[in-house]
């Protein structure tokens, strides 16, 4: 029982981290109808910026060993992501208003390659460290009840809390602010939104900025766990089944989807894996999402699209 609970909790916490990456997909799709294939590259780019500025700024300002340097690096990395968002709107999206979804999707693929290449050229392609003081050692709870205790990974727990807070803030932003409503209006219909005076270009900059900020938080958390290196861009692949399952337009969907995928893949690897050779968690997540799609093509919380002809 203790082992089952450990796997379940581990899956939930991993799921929260997948949700964080999935949020980036959802935010941009929700506000602009673009499936952003560059989200993984944005996570990598943001993490690279954070890691390198956390190294450079203390060296420039003589702040070695101080969390002030890390905080400054976070702010500057955030500013870098703002510049990225502005450039994406200026150089790519502005020229593709009212184009087919597939065109925009291909454009984001191009953005992904550019971000990966520019990131490696500007920040380097070695493995870099992000140290935000996350605890690495485990804690064992309820040692009296379960032999060996119940393992909780403190780092994952804190990361899951941060992800939960960010999700709460974003939900409030979308539901309760004027800009949030404008974002949703743009997602529904570009032309209609423009006709009632919503500035499309500014909205796109805002939404890419928010997605960049989410990518930065995800990059810091994943970078702290894995080290900052190219593989970070592949964590987006872990988030794809989450958005398929949760629905591309729902923030709560990204959370619930993340939790289901996280738990599903861990339980499958542990209990099903040994029977069929192991190493199954990646494809199992996609299978799980596909099964859900059979019954709800729009995902668990996605909006049902009805085309009247």
């Amino acid at each position: 029982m203790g082992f089952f609970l450990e796997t379940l909790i581990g899956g939930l916490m991993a799921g929260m981290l997948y949700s964080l990456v999935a949020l980036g997909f959802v935010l941009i799709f929700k506000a602009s109808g673009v499936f952003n294939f560059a989200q993984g590259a944005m996570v990598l780019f943001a993490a690279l910026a954070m890691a390198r500025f956390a190294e450079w700024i203390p060296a420039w300002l003589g702040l070695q060993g101080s969390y002030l340097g890390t905080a400054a690096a976070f702010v500057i990395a955030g500013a870098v992501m703002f510049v990225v968002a502005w450039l994406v709107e200026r150089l790519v999206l502005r020229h593709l208003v009212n184009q087919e979804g597939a065109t925009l999707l291909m454009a984001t693929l191009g953005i992904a390659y550019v971000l990966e290449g520019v990131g490696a050229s500007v920040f380097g392609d070695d493995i870099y460290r992000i140290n935000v003081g996350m605890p690495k050692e485990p804690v064992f709870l309820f040692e009296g009840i379960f032999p060996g205790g119940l393992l909780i990974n403190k780092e994952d727990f804190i990361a899951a809390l941060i992800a939960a807070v960010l999700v709460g803030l974003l939900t409030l932003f979308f539901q309760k602010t004027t800009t949030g409503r404008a974002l949703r209006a743009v997602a529904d219909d570009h032309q209609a939104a423009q006709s009632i005076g919503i500035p499309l270009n500014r909205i796109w900059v805002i939404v890419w900025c928010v997605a960049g900020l989410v990518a930065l938080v995800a990059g810091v958390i994943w970078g702290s766990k894995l080290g900052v290196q190219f593989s970070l861009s592949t964590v987006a692949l872990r988030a794809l089944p989450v958005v398929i399952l949760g629905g591309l337009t729902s923030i709560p969907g990204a959370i619930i989807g993340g939790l289901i995928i996280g738990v599903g893949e861990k339980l499958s690897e542990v209990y099903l894996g040994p029977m069929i050779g192991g190493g199954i968690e990646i494809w199992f997540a996609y299978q799980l999402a596909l099964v859900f799609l059979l019954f709800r093509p729009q995902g668990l919380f996605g909006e049902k699209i009805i085309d009247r002809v």
Partner: protein
Amino acid sequence: MNLRKLALTASLGAVVLSSLATASAVAAEAKEQFFPALVYRTGAYAPNGTPWANGYIDYLKLVNAKGGINGVKVVFEECETGYATDRGVECYERLKGKHGGATVFQPLSTGITFALTEKAPKDKIPLITAGYGRSESSNGAVFTWNFPLLGTYWVGADVAIQYIAKQLGGVDKLKGKKIALVYHDSPYGKEPIAVLEELAKKDGFEVQLLPVAHPGVEQKATWLQIRQSRPDYVLLWGWGVMNSTALREAQATGYPRDKMLGVWWSGADPDVKDVGEGAKGYSALTLQDGADSNSKIVKDILAAVHAKGEGTGPKDEVGSILYMRGLISAMLGVEGVRKAQERYGKGKVMTGEQVRWGLENLNLDQATLDAMGFAGVMRPVQTSCLDHMGSSWVRIRTWNGKKWETTSDWFQADDKTLRPMVMLASGKYAEDKKLKPRTPEECNK
């Protein structure tokens, strides 16, 4: 001279000059030995692939700086594989006929090696796979173009069990123990399984197999299984980010790092430097000595290549583990050419077939290695037509939280266990492919 005569003279002059230029170009080309470089500087495995590539290229530059191989200049061209088998094969096809033909291929990927093993015999180009590739390809009677020099994964697996037995106090203490193998779910990661299962039967221990999907960034479920089954030792057969992630997960689940032992591709600087103190006590096999940043060859590279601003990568990387492995790999190829020249003509460009003869007759004894600056970097290697491996010596190094330290004496793989396995597996390969193994008499021709 009228205009017509002037044009005619100019044309004739141009023809003479261009034929002279062509002749000199042909002569220059005839004096160039082409070393294609299959590398990966991008993608998930770039942090490990880049230092290997830099070491490989730097050594070739050093050879040229010293006048080439008996006067024959080395030319090289990189092709990016991204550690993907399809791209590796594409690179092979693109480069095999360039610059007069490839001397040797070194793909730095077991998956690519599996694919090229079928192609190399048709193209008559040797494959050097120092420390990787197909383990049974050490049998040169069947795998006539493969050279898994210095050691195979079967050597690694055997030595890993020898080391664990020594730690436990003897081979008899292995009985009843549990050893988990956390491996990259690829041809590379699966290579040691056959030997581990064979030794488990012989010595009475249990093997738990735990595959990790590429690239290995998510291993929570794997390490929860380890926490549940509590193996006595964990063998790590990873590459790239999988290694550091495994060490972090071991820390996060409280598995003791001093009970973890990695293969030589899981024991380099990128695997541990970011984990730091969290990896303290973790040990890994070395492929030969591995690295010595104070060795003469390192000083030579710094003086003849980096000091002239021609270094391929950063200067502080020279002498690191993966850099040195790339450098050693290049050296083995160059020495194959040098040996071939002894038979087929000094100062001549060698064909793939001639280089194969050179690689089958390598005899790098300690005096030769010392003279080349490799003292403290590697042990002697002697190959033959039937033995394409040439050496099976391994040591163990341990991460002390800040740097690697050599912590064991030399181990040699047990030929009594491995030889029958090599013969069986290579025999089956020959049967499947309808190959007639070479006899010792044919080797001497």
